[in-house]
Each structure stands twice: as structure tokens, then as C-alpha cells.
């Protein structure tokens, strides 16, 4: 081979080497682009999915919180209404309680008319108590102010009981030392008071029958409560 042949061969080889390198570089470049796209897409989609899930969860929590808040509000409202119902009914009892006074207040009105009504009431209360206790000997307690009225009707009450039950006259011992508390007034609003009536007990004090106007109102009120509520609130769920 002469010089120019060698030279040409070398040139060819150089060109070949360069060509190969550039082809390889180009392959690498193309596959790099593909990989870039795939990698980027995968990463983005994965992240987006995570983010979407996170926000779905957040929204759900908000929903739940709203629901809880609303049902709490609803409950609070219901309780308010129930409380108002209660208040209304109780204020009626209060009003009735105040009216009791006019029943037993025999000092300020005409003594003859009003006094007799209350006096007769006391008699009936005593008879009823005797009938409930069915004891031959009883203790009786009344308000200090009512003492004279009680003493007035005691005998006829005892007789009425004895006749009804066909027994001997009962022994009724009136307590002259301890009395029922006095009528309610501005002074004793928060202390014990009694609007009238009597309390009877068996001799040994073990069986007690409270027949005061206040006790009667309490029992009556409790018994009539369903009826009163129905009348007031109709079909409203209680």
C-alpha cells in the first residue's frame, strides 16, 4: 500500500468512528426523550392521584362536620321547645298554687260566706283522711291560723267518719304545739309555707297522710299532666 491508500483508509476509519459515535449519541438522545416523557407523565399522574384522594377526604370530613353540626342544632332546638313547654305548664301550676290562697284565706273576705266554705273544706279533708288511715286514734296537725276552724268541725268530722265506716268514734289528737307552716307571703316566699288543709297520722306516727291543699295540688297536677299537655300541645310530640 502506498501512502495515499493508507491515508484514505485512515480517513475512512476516522469517519466511521465518528459516524458510529453520532449514531449512538442520537439513539441515546431519542430514548432519553421517550424516557423523559414517560417518567414525567407517571410522576405527575401518581402525584395528582394522591392529591385528588387527599382533597376527597377533606371534602368528606367537611360534609360530616356539617351534618353533625346541623343535628346538634336540631337537638338544641328541640330541647328549647321542650323546655318552653315545661315552663308554660309549670307556670300554670304556679298560678294555681297562688289561687289556693284565696281558698283558705278566710280573714280578708266576708267571714260568714268565705269562712264557711273553707271550714267545710277542712271538715271534708279530715273525713277523707280518716277514711284513708282507718285508724282508731290519729294525730292531726294544721296551721295555727286554722286551729279554731278545725276545732269547730272536729266533732262532726269524727261522727261522719264513724257513721260511714260503721266504727266507733276515732280519737283525734290535735297538735297544739307544732303547727303547719303559715300561708305564703312576701316574707316567706322561699321558706316552707302551707296554703291550708291538714296532715293526719296514725298514733305511732308511722303512717302519714298529707291532705294539705299544696300536697293535693302536687298529686293532682302530676296526674293531670298528660291531659294538660295534650290539651296545650295537641299532637306535637312530647
Amino acid at each position, binding site marked *: 500500500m502506498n501512502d495515499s491508500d493508507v491515508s484514505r483508509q485512515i480517513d475512512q476509519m476516522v469517519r466511521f468512528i465518528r459516524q458510529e459515535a453520532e449514531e449512538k449519541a442520537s439513539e441515546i438522545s431519542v430514548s432519553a426523550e421517550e424516557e423523559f416523557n414517560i417518567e414525567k407523565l407517571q410522576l405527575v399522574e401518581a402525584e395528582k392521584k394522591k392529591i385528588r384522594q387527599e382533597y376527597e377526604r377533606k371534602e368528606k370530613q367537611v360534609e360530616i362536620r356539617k351534618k353533625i353540626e346541623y343535628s346538634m342544632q336540631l337537638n338544641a*332546638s328541640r330541647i328549647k321547645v321542650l323546655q318552653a313547654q315545661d315552663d308554660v305548664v309549670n307556670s300554670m301550676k304556679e298560678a294555681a298554687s297562688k289561687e289556693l290562697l284565696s281558698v283558705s284565706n278566710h280573714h280578708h273576705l266576708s267571714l260568714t260566706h268565705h269562712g264557711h266554705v273553707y271550714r267545710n273544706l277542712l271538715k271534708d279533708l279530715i273525713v277523707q283522711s280518716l277514711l284513708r288511715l282507718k285508724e282508731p286514734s290519729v294525730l292531726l296537725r294544721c296551721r295555727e291560723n286554722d286551729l279554731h276552724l278545725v276545732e269547730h268541725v272536729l266533732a262532726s268530722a269524727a261522727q261522719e267518719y264513724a257513721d260511714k265506716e260503721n266504727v266507733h268514734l276515732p280519737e283525734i289528737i290535735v297538735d297544739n304545739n307544732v303547727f303547719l307552716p303559715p300561708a305564703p307571703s312576701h316574707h316567706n316566699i322561699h321558706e316552707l309555707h302551707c296554703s291550708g288543709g291538714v296532715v293526719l297520722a296514725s298514733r305511732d306516727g308511722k303512717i302519714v297522710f298529707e291532705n294539705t291543699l299544696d300536697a293535693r295540688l302536687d298529686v293532682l297536677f302530676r296526674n293531670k299532666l298528660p291531659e294538660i299537655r295534650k290539651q296545650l300541645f295537641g299532637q306535637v310530640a312530647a
Partner: protein
Amino acid sequence: MDSFKGQEGIQMLLTAEQEAQHIVLSARNLRTQRLKQAKEEAEREASQYKSHMEDEYQKSLLESSGSSGSNVKRLDEETEDKINNLKQSASKVSNEVVDMLLKHVTNIKV
């Protein structure tokens, strides 16, 4: 003369080989860089998406708090109405009820 020419030739080949390696290496480096770019761009797109979702979320929060506020108000008004009706119908029958109670208290069935 011959050996010199030979040297030159070999030198050229070696140089060409070096350059070739250089070319391929560059391409490989570019590819590595490209992959890094993929991560960076993906992160950027993802955080854009996230801030978009966050905006939507905040908007929906505002809407819902507005509507729940008005719900509460409506509920309160309804309750007030109920209670007022209650009080009205109670005051209508109050006297009747009190009279009834008194009658029973003072009416003793022996």
C-alpha cells in the same frame, strides 16, 4: 518517513476514538439531565395542580359555611315561632286549666 506517517495515522485514530467517546458521553449526560428535568417538571405540575385543588376546596368551604349559617338562622326562627305559638295557645287555656285544678283540689270525694 514510513513510521512517521504511521504514527500520524494512529494518532488520528486515537483522537477520533477519543472524540467518539466524548460524543457518546455527552449524550449520556444529557439523558441523565433530562431525567432530572422530568422529576422537576413533574413536581412543578403537581404543585400547580395542588394549589388549584386547594383554591377549589377553599371556595367550597366558603359556600358551605354560608349556607349552613343561613340554615341555622332558619332553624332558630322556626324554633322562636314554635315557642311563641306555644305561649299563645297556653295563655288562651291557662285560666281554664287553673280553674280545673282548683276545682279538683277543693272537691273532695269522700
